[in-house]
């Protein structure tokens, strides 16, 4: 009997251990790779970004070159559209599984830096050379005096239009310093003469609203991180957009609701409008979608000529605070920003490079859309006001709320004022917390 007993418990112990192992592997299956390991002792880094297929192809090419120069490092890449990227990164970061190297938006820095997700680049000062960067631009990646993100390029907004169709319509072409009311008239005329809406409904875009607001001498946020505008301002903007939409001068709600941050799903990208307001570098995606090519024009100014658009650090690179290989991760950042060969490959796919020496050296060689972006930015050089400080952390969520509240207006379920009141209430709550 005692023998029997020991045998039994021995057997059940084995079984229990096996069961435990099985369930443990189930548990850990979720946590994924932590950067270590890989084939043949290679260092494996994860690098993620958002963007269009053109950017993806060129980024991959640059990464391949990096791997060639550093045979001991393997870089696993992934990319998606902005909306999807934003959600995925937030989930990964919250789960302590942020990619080693990540592309960040101006809106994300405050949130991730204060949440302890990002590495302070001062810890790897010897690996990353920022000597060639414009100090003012570099400062946009700082939170509480620490460099958590490195601006990768600068960009500005643009009215991007179908060159052939606009010209054929005979409507006066956009010029620098045109006002919002001139823009609205142009949209009406375009709609009348081409039978298509002139532009994407700007009401859904917090970015366009910001340009309009700055043209009126206000801002989205005050310096102490409160809302910089009132219900009246937003009502004014949404009434403006609502009226144009009802007249058919800008895209209908059914089109606008499909916007998800990719150029493919904009009315211009689908051939359902003549123009779109977008960021300059991502507009390269339109080249493949609009058969006769696109032109970049400045955003409208305030009625007194105050420019609303500004040069913004278009995106940043950050490294995870808990990256398995911080040094190699920062090496990749350095390569993407400072390597002349990488700069040649990347061109202006993320905007014009921030490394000033590289900017000058690649400028003559820029071609196609990169040249377009470069010339567009050059045409605005010196004319724009300074950028606002990094938006407070609630802004990322508010951007979505902005679209949603305007959806209520464009589907005619709320008046512009009702929606504006909703938005301001939610924004105040969001910024307070």
């Amino acid at each position: 009997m005692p023998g029997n007993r020991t045998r039994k418990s021995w057997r059940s112990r084995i079984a229990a251990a096996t069961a435990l192992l099985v369930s443990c592997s189930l548990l850990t299956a979720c946590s994924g790779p932590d950067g270590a390991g890989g084939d043949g002792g290679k260092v494996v880094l994860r690098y993620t970004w958002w963007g269009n297929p053109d950017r993806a192809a060129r980024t991959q090419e640059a990464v391949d070159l990096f791997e060639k120069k550093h045979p001991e490092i393997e870089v696993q890449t992934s990319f998606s559209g902005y909306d999807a990227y934003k959600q995925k990164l937030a989930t990964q970061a919250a789960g302590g599984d942020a990619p080693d190297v990540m592309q960040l938006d101006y809106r994300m820095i405050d949130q991730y830096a204060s949440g302890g997700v990002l590495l302070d680049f001062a810890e790897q000062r010897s690996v990353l050379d920022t000597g060639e960067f414009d100090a003012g631009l570099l400062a946009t990646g700082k939170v509480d005096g620490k460099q958590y993100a490195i601006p990768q390029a600068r960009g500005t907004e643009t009215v991007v239009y179908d060159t052939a169709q606009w010209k054929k319509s005979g409507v006066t072409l956009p010029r620098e310093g045109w006002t919002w009311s001139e823009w609205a008239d142009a949209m009406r005329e375009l709609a009348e003469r081409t039978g298509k809406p002139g532009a994407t409904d700007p009401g859904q875009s917090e970015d366009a609203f910001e340009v309009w607001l700055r043209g009126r001498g206000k801002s989205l946020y005050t310096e102490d991180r409160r809302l910089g505008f009132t219900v009246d301002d937003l009502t004014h903007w949404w009434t403006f957009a609502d009226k144009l939409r009802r007249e058919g001068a800008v895209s209908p709600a059914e089109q606008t609701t499909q916007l998800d941050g990719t150029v493919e799903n904009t009315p211009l990208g689908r051939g359902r409008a003549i123009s779109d307001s977008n960021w300059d570098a991502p507009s390269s995606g339109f080249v493949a979608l609009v058969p006769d090519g696109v032109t970049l024009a400045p955003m409208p100014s305030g009625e007194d000529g105050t420019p609303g658009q500004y040069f913004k650090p278009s995106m940043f690179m950050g490294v995870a605070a808990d990256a398995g290989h911080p040094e190699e991760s920062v090496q990749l950042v350095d390569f993407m920003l400072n390597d002349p060969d990488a700069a040649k490959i990347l061109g202006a796919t993320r905007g014009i490079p921030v490394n000033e020496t590289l900017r000058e050296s690649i400028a003559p060689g820029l071609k196609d859309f990169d040249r377009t972006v470069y010339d567009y930015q050059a045409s605005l050089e010196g004319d724009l006001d300074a950028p606002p400080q990094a938006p407070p952390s609630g802004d990322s969520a508010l951007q979505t709320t902005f679209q949603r509240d305007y959806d209520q207006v464009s589907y005619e379920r709320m008046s512009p004022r009702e929606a504006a009141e909703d938005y301001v209430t939610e924004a105040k709550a969001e910024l307070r917390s």
Partner: protein
Amino acid sequence: MTTTTDTPVTAPAARTTPAKRPGGRQREGAAWVFLSPWVLGAAVLTLLPMAVSLYLSFTDYDLFNPPRWVGLRNYTQMFTEDPRYWRSVGATLTYVVIAVPLQLGIALVVALGLKSMRRGRGFYRSAFYAPSLLGASMSIALVWRALFNDGGTVDNLLGTGGWVNRPGWALFAVALLTVWQFGAPMVIFLAGLQQIPTELYEAASVDGASRWRQFLSITVPMLSPVIFFNLVLQTIQAFQVFTPAFAVSGGKGGPADSTLFYTLYLYDRGFVASHMGYASAMAWVLLIVIGAVTAVLFRTSRTWVFYASEGDR
């Protein structure tokens, strides 16, 4: 071990169950071993997160900074200050009321059709069941979005424009995806139908009852436990619908919040706006509501569900 050594056993019994008695003990141990993945899983993956979520529902938690205790604020905000919350409640209830009866109705009709089929029943049963296997996947939901988008198949055939971009229609596109997966309740209905003794129908025919009369007086009462089971199951699932709504609405519950189902808004609050405390509070309210609805269903079931064994009393 005490049971095996202390309990005297009679010879014949010992002969028939000699290995069984000590084995019973052994089996109990083995049972726990085999259960352990589930028990551990339930404890670590279900009970623990539930407890944490209950705690979080009383806090302000943005995923990055430590949770801050706010008492009932999440709950009061939800009920009194958040119009979008109530829109999500409205969308969910509309969906449940449309999708569940429609799905069960179709499942029952098809099951009745299959039951009277003499040949090829196996084939059709599998064919109708297939969508239930596929339907939960993201890819089908994406195909659904493409079908019902403007310029999609449905738009081209019916000229209705893109359903998924019209506030009044988008919810139906999502509901249709659920209804299309009627295979799972259908299989259960079919099994239930085959349990009904044929003598009942034979006796009814002899008495001259019409087909319709037989359906009302025999099929429905005899099937009522199965109907009840399906109703409870599908209602609970419908309240928690997420994947199809997420994909079909492009992840935003649009247009104009018309497909902003409860779980979608919960996800939005938690993972997009980083208000995990608020999202946790929403989850607990949902749990309580589903519990209450299920309890009501059980309560009403006394009046319409017929268990054959009751006939003996």
